């Protein structure tokens, strides 16, 4: 179990292309925003919280097809499926590895990018808390989407089409937490709801992902 996690983590760190890419995308996204919206700091600070959430979500989305695709191509997935480790646990671990290599760096980078977008100081704790509570849900839901489309060649675009509607509740509640925090309001309720979505998704979706993997491996 730990072996699979360690393997995924070291692959992401050493094999290149996976680990830093989502972060770089996040940075570029934030850098492009003022070109589209205009550089007025007042306007930027109004929308900064929502933009950071949107950027984190898109960065997460971009790295999803790597979760199972490479393992599928070189046959590792068959070995994982025939190993004594249940496939449900394997897909849960895959989601955890994805979060550790994508979600957590995004959370760490968000405050710095928040400074660039002139995010109000009161919003920083809420932003970090909401990203910490919400990004695991993005990884878990994304793992399910990746499991659905693993057998499809060039399934990246389809994966986005399937996963984005599933991301809606997480995005709404997470961004709401950060936005309310930016307005100086108490955002405990949406934060708890975001955490609730993460917990619910983490409890249920590994089973759905495992079911989809079994169909694809048949």
């Amino acid at each position, binding site marked *: 179990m730990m072996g699979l996690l360690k393997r995924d983590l070291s692959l992401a760190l050493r094999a290149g292309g996976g680990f830093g890419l989502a972060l770089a995308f996040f940075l570029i996204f934030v850098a492009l925003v003022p070109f589209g919206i205009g550089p007025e700091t007042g306007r930027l600070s109004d929308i900064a919280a929502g933009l950071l959430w949107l950027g984190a979500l898109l960065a997460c989305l971009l790295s999803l097809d790597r979760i199972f695709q490479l393992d599928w191509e070189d046959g590792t997935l068959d070995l994982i499926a025939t190993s004594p480790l249940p496939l449900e646990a394997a897909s849960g671990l895959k989601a955890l590895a994805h979060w550790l290599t994508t979600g957590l760096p995004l959370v760490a980078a968000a405050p710095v990018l928040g400074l660039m977008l002139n995010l109000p100081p009161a919003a920083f704790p809420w932003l970090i808390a909401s990203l910490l509570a919400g990004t695991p849900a993005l990884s878990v839901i994304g793992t*399910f989407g990746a499991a659905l*489309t693993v057998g499809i060649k060039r399934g990246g675009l389809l994966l986005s089409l*399937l996963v984005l509607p599933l991301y809606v509740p997480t995005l709404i*509640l997470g961004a709401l937490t950060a936005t309310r925090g930016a307005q100086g309001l108490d955002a405990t309720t949406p934060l708890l709801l975001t955490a609730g*979505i993460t917990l619910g998704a983490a409890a249920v979706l590994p089973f759905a992902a495992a079911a989809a993997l079994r169909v694809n491996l048949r």
Partner: protein
Amino acid sequence: MVSIWEYANPRRFMATSGAVLPWVAAIAALSLIGGLVWGFFFTPDDFRQGATVKIIYVHVPAAIMAVNAWLMMLVASLIWVIRRHHVSALAAKAAAPVGMIFTLIALFTGAVWGQPMWGTWWEWDPRLTSFLILFLFYLGYMALWEAIDNPDQAADLTAVLCLVGSVFALISRYALVFWNQGLHQGTTVSTVGVGVARNEGVADVFLYPLMVSLAGFAFLFLALVLYRTRTEIRARRVKALIAQERMA
């Protein structure tokens, strides 16, 4: 004792649905024409909304059927997952484009209605937004069917997507209510239980033609799904024949 599971046999399904289909289609045409003509030409204009109120005869039935089509897909997917009846999986596949078009009709007529009433074509209101998301779910579901060659695999994966998607669509609905106060009015027409539970929202003059039109949309949906399921079964048979030919 005839049970519904008899129709899991494609041959029986084809025989019965072939016999029923013309009747369903006829009822759909009659009640659609009846309801719409009654609604459009023989009801008074609304006190405040004027003639635009007549959009209700298309908007409300389309919206109700758009949601019910997804529910039907959910039930059909569950039947496929649990009992593995191919007709059920094909019925779910057949219902998706019909439901998508109903969703589109509801969104479009809503925009046309919203422009004179609210002064805007589109508003990020929970009800409007959840229909947009429902539309995206339909698109994803259909795209997944198209993307996979093996029909059984496609049926399995789309069924899983439909189950998970239903849960998330429901969560989205409530998250959206939490997110933004709505402009759209609440539920004023309800058809829960036996008959019609009348509610104070819609006056009788408008309600009766609306019910006829709703029945028209429901039968139209049934007719289209039966027709499309028959097409899917035939397409499957043709595929099997071609495969046999190749083997021989």
